[in-house]
């Protein structure tokens, strides 16, 4: 049974329809990547799953529980944590406080706690008392990931975690993914960098204009197929 799935997911911003029947499934201990151009609906999909955008109840399910119409705070309590696009750290909170607030709605005895997050990203231990605004972009991204991990999520949603970061920093951040998976989370990674997505994911979904246009395992997808699914044009 899927850990998390969407079924015929529709999403709207007022009169504007952003998703037209998206079906994705995430199995236990799986990493899936969602790729697609700007405006293809990737972030809307993340917002729908995390509860920031309301949907009909059955369109999103966590195990057998329909959660499409749940609020974000309630979904987080189930163990679905999100690393939002643009990091969205709390400027009034120090690095350590940003990490601690990740446990507000879900207290667990799981693997991730301050110490283990500092082991994963050692630089954060040195910066723990700094305001989060004084960190570099890469370090801020580490805080955002650590903050989501603090609740020991069963599903970790990562929205554009490489956005605006230098390639070497992106590599550093993706190095954390195996440890995150090993600690018991399944991941949905939204990524514009196709190479990065193919390298890390078990399965890939490609989106265009609010629909899934292609899905499969990285080995079975050709460059040409992805190009078509991405741009909608014949290569």
């Amino acid at each position, binding site marked *: 049974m899927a850990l998390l799935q969407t079924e015929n997911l529709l999403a709207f911003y007022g009169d504007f329809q952003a998703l037209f029947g998206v079906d994705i499934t995430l199995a236990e201990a799986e990493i899936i990547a969602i790729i697609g151009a700007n405006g293809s609906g990737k972030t809307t999909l993340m917002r729908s799953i995390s509860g920031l955008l309301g949907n009909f109840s059955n369109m999103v399910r966590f195990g057998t529980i329909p959660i499409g119409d749940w609020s*974000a705070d309630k979904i987080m309590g189930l163990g679905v944590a999100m690393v939002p696009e643009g990091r*969205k750290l709390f400027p009034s909170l120090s690095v350590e*406080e940003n990490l601690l*607030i990740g446990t*507000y709605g879900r207290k667990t005895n799981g693997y991730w706690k301050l110490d283990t997050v500092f082991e994963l990203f050692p630089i954060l231990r040195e910066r723990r008392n700094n305001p989060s605004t004084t960190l570099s972009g890469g370090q801020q991204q580490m805080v955002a990931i650590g903050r989501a991990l603090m609740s020991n999520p069963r599903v970790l949603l990562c929205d554009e975690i490489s956005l605006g970061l230098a390639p070497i920093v992106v590599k550093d951040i993706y190095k954390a993914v195996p440890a995150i998976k090993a600690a018991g989370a399944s991941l949905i990674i939204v990524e514009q960098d196709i190479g990065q997505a193919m390298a890390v994911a078990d399965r890939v979904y490609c989106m265009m204009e609010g629909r899934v246009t292609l899905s499969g395992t990285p080995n079975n997808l050709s460059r040409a197929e992805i190009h078509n699914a991405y741009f909608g044009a014949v290569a």
Partner: protein
Amino acid sequence: MIWVDTIAQGILLGGLYALFAAGLSLVFGIMRLVNLAHGDLIVMGAYLILVLVTFLGLPPFLAVLIAMPIMFALGWSLQKFILNRTLGNDVLPPLLVTFGLSIILQNVLLESFSADSQRLPTDVLTTASIDVGPISLGVMPLLAFASAIFVIVGLNQLFYKTSLGRAFRATSDDPVTASLMGIKPANIFATATGIAMIVVIIASLYLGLRSNFDPNIGPARLIYAFEAVIIGGLGSLWGTLLGGVIIGVAQTVGAAINPEWQILTGHLAFLSVLLFRPRGLFPRAND
């Protein structure tokens, strides 16, 4: 020596104004909500204490302890069921609704208690004074000032040392991202207003012990509270105490020069701070 005395009295009066202002500052700091009924809520609190004192025969200091949970529940419900609906990108709805609430409160108090001015019963302790060198300080103003410091220290501890305080600050920064942390912003706001009402009832106690009150004096308390918050810098609680002290000293010094000037000099002090430091003395960095 008369000037030392005047300034000392002004500082102590500032403690009372800081108590008026602390609840306003708390609510504004967390949800950017300007509660125009704040002064009337203080007056309502004074009547609540009066009722408890009259019907249960309690001393005011005990009555205020009983009033605290009542006020918390009232503030929580007010925020949860009414004020949360007014929050959004538009600043006008909360102003209109709290303005309306102010009028309703004044008239309900007027209907229930008449326009006669009231006062909380004082005893030997509350009218006593202590001689400090050449000047003599009232026990009641000293208690008010000590309470203001106690409230501000307490609120700062709450804000910076507890998990709830982290949630307050995070929600203030970004309610949408806060909800991804499992925080329900509507409940955080309700809790914040509940806590603000506990501060309000402490202010009510000293308002009622210090002077007479009637249903119509709320708006003037609101103005003093506003001025204290703005002089101190929005969102800074210690700034609010300093703001209260500046207004208090300006008022007593003005009154010492000419009794007609008391209110005027307080407002002039506020205007000059606005002129030279429009963001207040301790503005928050990220506003």
